[in-house]
């Protein structure tokens, strides 16, 4: 979180409107407009043609950017994260539906389960007047100081000739319900004049066979209703904040994006010609509405336009969607839009690295209010003409005063017509299964699906143990559900448990094959002449299996799986990036480059492919090419800190130190905890740019960016006494980070205390995170791969190099069945010495590593003295007697004095 962490006395200052300063009273007005699923990739060509003049005005006069979405990209969760600055596991809105208090009915999600304050609740406590229209979910309307029109407002649940009642709780204050009811547009009111701009040849549609006109009319009427309510409020009411959310764009896109130009081969010509204009017309209609909102907001207002995720408008959209709940989310792209214009906001500017979670913190700064430290986002500071300090408060949840929030309540059980209409639309869009078929089963599925979405949110927020807990339970309950199993396997991979991941995949395949065989038997029983099909593992399991194999270092096997998809017309281009990542793991840079060329031919805007290409070219010494691709990567996706890091590396290697420093600085801006970049930047400033003070300041900064608990590392060359030191520290009271896989043997009769994952430290450095607060063995060559974001206390075991080699030789001979050939290579002595010298240099530039050197011979000769030293180094927290008792001098078997090499 950026800004000052000084929070003393803040909760007093921000307790209710009585505490509001004069400065606060003349706050700016902020209009926040949400266009679900709006995407710059679709908007830019329309603006270029002059078809979105109002958005163009906003863009030209303000600051724009892309908003990174969250996973899962499901709108009720996302829009609640937008309004609260918190992830779903904090705010409590999970999924599209919820169950009634009886647990047997399925209802559209409401706001009663939201556990935290939304921006309008915070503003309410500051005496500011807010209005909210259509926010998803916002039913029942909250009793705020202003008007709230819930997301149950617009949906017509009956034909036009029947009464169209408005559900209780739709409007706050309730006495305005009748007034707002009149602002709703019924789909049946619409005429050819409204439909023709979307579907000029609508007369060719047989409405008995195609429901497209009905769908379009409904989306359009809903959208017009929201606009009518929002404009009425802007015309009639005083306001400080207004939030209005339009879901129309998302619905237009899920219904009609498949017809968007260019036509894809599987889209029939007739349908293409009929519906190809719908999505672009939807954007133009939204632009017309934006024009009116801007006009009503006035020049002195700050207007922010956002979307929660994008939507692939081009060949990247999937050919088909998985037949599973929320399958349509696969059409979403990971970046929404962001645009803000108003007093003090930069004109014609861009910001990078913003996300949905940043919206509420940014809104708070617009009102000169502090950001909650418990919010998961940060204020977007780059929008301001003049830099401003960001104040922090521990949490807005602790601030007292009327927030206008509902007390926590249970949803009732009754399903109303309005509920049913909302549910029907979710069914139609493919987001949920039809609950009418079996209500109790649907309720059970809702609970399970929401747990699954929660696990995805945990994964997205890096809370892997919590995600694992949910996914393990889900996989146990429904072992045939591919989604649960594949996400569980993926999470096991992230915590470096490839064997567990493989076991899950094998179980999934077993269940899937059983289902397949049962289908085949049933088909054969019906038709004995039916051809017998052979079972094939689903693609997503196969690709995940390749990932697991890659992480285990079994690259050839991974490649074999992935290469089998190369000739598939649909999957072939998509598998190339995966092939490239395996090849990169094998250091086959030139082959990886070829695979990446194919990836970029298919998707020239793939930031990750440009990034990988840049790395490969750097490795093949094509620095110019590397810089070009890395520039492209950061241009497409500015938020990937590692792309800037590699750009810095490429510039450094080419001698462009100023540019390298700039790239590392941006990397640090995006990822302040990446001390690896800080170290490199410090080195450039001290060695190349003649700025030792800047270098020192950077190194001093490192401490503030360290995370978590200290990690104790025992290191040294193999056979230098590292296992002995591990045994001693564990005996002394330390908790070891070990998987217990490598058992004791003649070479190490008391055990090795190793962890398999540490062997993959180069590929998966994140494993070290799990060693926080513990002692871990890391062989000397891997020490430079310790993540710089942690503090380390490192005990370096030193032993005479000849003794080390002799001991290694003995160990190898013990494990060898046939004797005769030399056990170690010549030149190893020099290599080891060079390695240790490099390590000495590395220690000098890594102030986060505190080193104690312990000579193996001293430890064996005088365990008491060395144990005292080690204990002092560890802060005196160990049991010295136990520590020294673990040292067994009898194991000192390869003394230099008695043996020669």
């Amino acid at each position, binding site marked *: 979180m950026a800004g000052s962490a000084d929070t003393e006395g803040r909760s007093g200052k921000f307790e209710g409107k009585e505490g509001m300063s004069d400065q606060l009273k003349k706050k700016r007005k902020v209009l926040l407009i949400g266009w679900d699923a709006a995407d710059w990739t679709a908007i830019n060509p329309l603006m270029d043609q002059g078809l979105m003049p109002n958005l163009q005005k906003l863009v030209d006069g303000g600051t724009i950017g892309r908003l990174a979405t969250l996973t899962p990209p499901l709108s009720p969760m996302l829009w609640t994260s937008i309004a609260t600055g918190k992830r779903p596991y904090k705010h409590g809105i999970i999924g599209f539906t919820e169950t009634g208090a009886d647990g047997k009915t399925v209802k559209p999600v409401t706001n009663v389960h939201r556990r935290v304050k939304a921006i309008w609740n915070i503003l309410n406590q500051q005496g500011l007047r807010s209005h909210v229209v259509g926010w998803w979910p916002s039913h029942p309307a909250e009793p705020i100081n202003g008007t709230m029109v819930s997301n149950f407002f617009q949906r017509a649940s009956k034909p036009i000739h029947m009464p169209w009642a408005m559900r209780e709780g739709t409007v706050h204050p309730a006495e305005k319900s009748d007034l707002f009811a009149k602002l*709703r*547009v019924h789909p*049946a*009111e619409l005429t*050819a004049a409204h439909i023709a701009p979307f579907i000029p040849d*609508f*007369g060719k549609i047989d409405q008995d066979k195609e429901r497209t006109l009905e769908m379009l009319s409904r989306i359009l009427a809903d959208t*017009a209703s929201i606009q009518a309510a929002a404009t009425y409020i802007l*015309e009639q009411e005083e306001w400080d904040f207004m939030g209005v959310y339009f879901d129309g764009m998302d619905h237009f896109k899920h219904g009609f994006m498949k017809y968007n130009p260019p036509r894809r081969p599987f889209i029939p010509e007739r349908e293409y010609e009929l519906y190809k204009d719908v999505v672009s017309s939807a954007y133009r209609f939204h632009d017309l509405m934006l024009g009116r*909102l801007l006009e009503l907001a006035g020049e002195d207002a700050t207007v922010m336009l956002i979307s929660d995720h994008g939507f692939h408008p081009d060949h990247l959209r999937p050919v088909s969607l998985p037949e599973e709940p929320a399958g349509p989310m696969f059409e979403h792209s990971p970046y929404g839009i962001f645009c803000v214009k108003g007093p003090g906001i930069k004109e014609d500017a861009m910001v990078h690295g913003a996300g949905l979670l940043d919206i509420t913190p940014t809104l708070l700064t617009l009102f000169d209010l502090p950001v909650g430290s418990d919010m998961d986002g940060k204020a977007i500071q780059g929008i301001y003409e003049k830099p401003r300090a960001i104040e922090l408060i521990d949490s807005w949840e602790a601030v007292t005063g009327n927030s206008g929030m509902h007390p926590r309540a249970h949803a009732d059980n009754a399903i109303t017509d309005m509920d049913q209409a909302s549910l029907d639309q979710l069914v139609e869009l493919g987001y949920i299964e039809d609950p009418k078929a079996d209500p109790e089963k649907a309720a059970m599925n809702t609970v399970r699906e929401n747990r699954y979405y929660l696990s995805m949110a945990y994964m997205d927020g890096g809370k892997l143990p919590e995600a694992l807990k949910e996914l393990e339970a889900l996989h146990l309950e429904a072992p045939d559900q591919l989604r649960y199993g594949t996400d569980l396997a993926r999470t096991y991979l992230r915590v470096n448990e490839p064997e567990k991941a493989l076991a899950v995949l094998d179980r999934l395949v077993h269940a899937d094959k059983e289902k397949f065989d049962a289908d085949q038997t049933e088909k054969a029983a019906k038709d004995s002449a039916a051809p017998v099909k052979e079972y094939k593992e689903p693609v997503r399991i196969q690709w995940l299996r390749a990932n697991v194999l890659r992480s285990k270092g079994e690259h050839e096997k991974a490649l074999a799986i992935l290469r089998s998809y190369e000739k598939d017309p649909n999957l072939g281009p998509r598998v190339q990036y995966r092939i490239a990542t395996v090849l990169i793991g094998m250091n086959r840079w030139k082959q990886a480059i070829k695979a990446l060329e194919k990836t970029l031919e298919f998707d020239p805007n793939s930031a990750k492919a440009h990034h990988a290409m840049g790395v490969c070219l750097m490795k093949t010494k094509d620095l110019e090419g590397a810089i070009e691709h890395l520039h492209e990567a950061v241009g497409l996706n500015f938020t990937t800190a590692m792309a800037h890091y590699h750009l810095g590396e490429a510039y450094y290697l080419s001698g462009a130190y100023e540019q390298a420093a700039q790239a590392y600085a941006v990397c640090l801006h995006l990822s302040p905890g990446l001390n690896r970049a800080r170290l490199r930047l410090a080195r450039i400033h001290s060695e190349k740019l003649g700025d030792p003070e800047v270098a020192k300041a950077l190194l001093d900064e490192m401490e503030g960016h360290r995370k978590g608990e200290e990690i104790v590392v025992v290191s040294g060359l193999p056979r230098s006494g590292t296992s002995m030191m591990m045994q001693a520290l564990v005996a002394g009271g330390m908790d070891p980070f070990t998987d217990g896989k490598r058992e004791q043997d003649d070479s190490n009769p008391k055990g090795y205390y190793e962890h398999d994952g540490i062997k993959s430290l180069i590929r998966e450095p994140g494993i070290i995170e799990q060693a926080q607060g513990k002692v871990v063995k890391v062989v000397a060559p891997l020490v430079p791969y310790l993540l710089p974001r942690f503090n380390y206390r490192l005990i370096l075991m030193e032993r005479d190099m000849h003794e080390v080699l002799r001991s290694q030789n003995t160990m190898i001979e013990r494990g060898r069945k046939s004797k005769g050939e030399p056990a170690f290579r010549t030149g190893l002595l020099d290599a080891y010495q060079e390695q240790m010298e490099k390590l000495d240099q590395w220690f000098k530039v890594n102030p986060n590593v505190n080193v104690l050197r312990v000579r193996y011979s001293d430890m064996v000769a005088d365990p008491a003295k060395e144990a005292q030293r080690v204990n002092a180094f560890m802060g005196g927290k160990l049991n010295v007697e136990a520590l020294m008792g673990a040292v067994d001098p009898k194991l000192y078997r390869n003394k230099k004095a008695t043996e020669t090499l």
Partner: protein
Amino acid sequence: MPIRYALIQITAVPLRIFPEGTGPHVSFLCTMAENKTRTGPDKALVPQFTTPDGKPFEVPAEGSLSLLAMGHVGLMAWREARIRKAAAENLKGKKG
């Protein structure tokens, strides 16, 4: 059958509102600006619209996307135009 819908009486229109055959190709951009209000015969304020070149815009009874985009005032003006048209047709019917 006339039904009560919101503020106004309209004739019920089934969802199947589109004629057979190719429909009219309506120009998308018919941008208007609400520049002032006039007082109607019932003393209520009625929005008045003009085209981008400043000419008065007569609100069509069949409505338009631009009117929907105008929000509250556009919607009310469109419904008022529908009432006027329905009233004129009723009158014509009676005279006929």
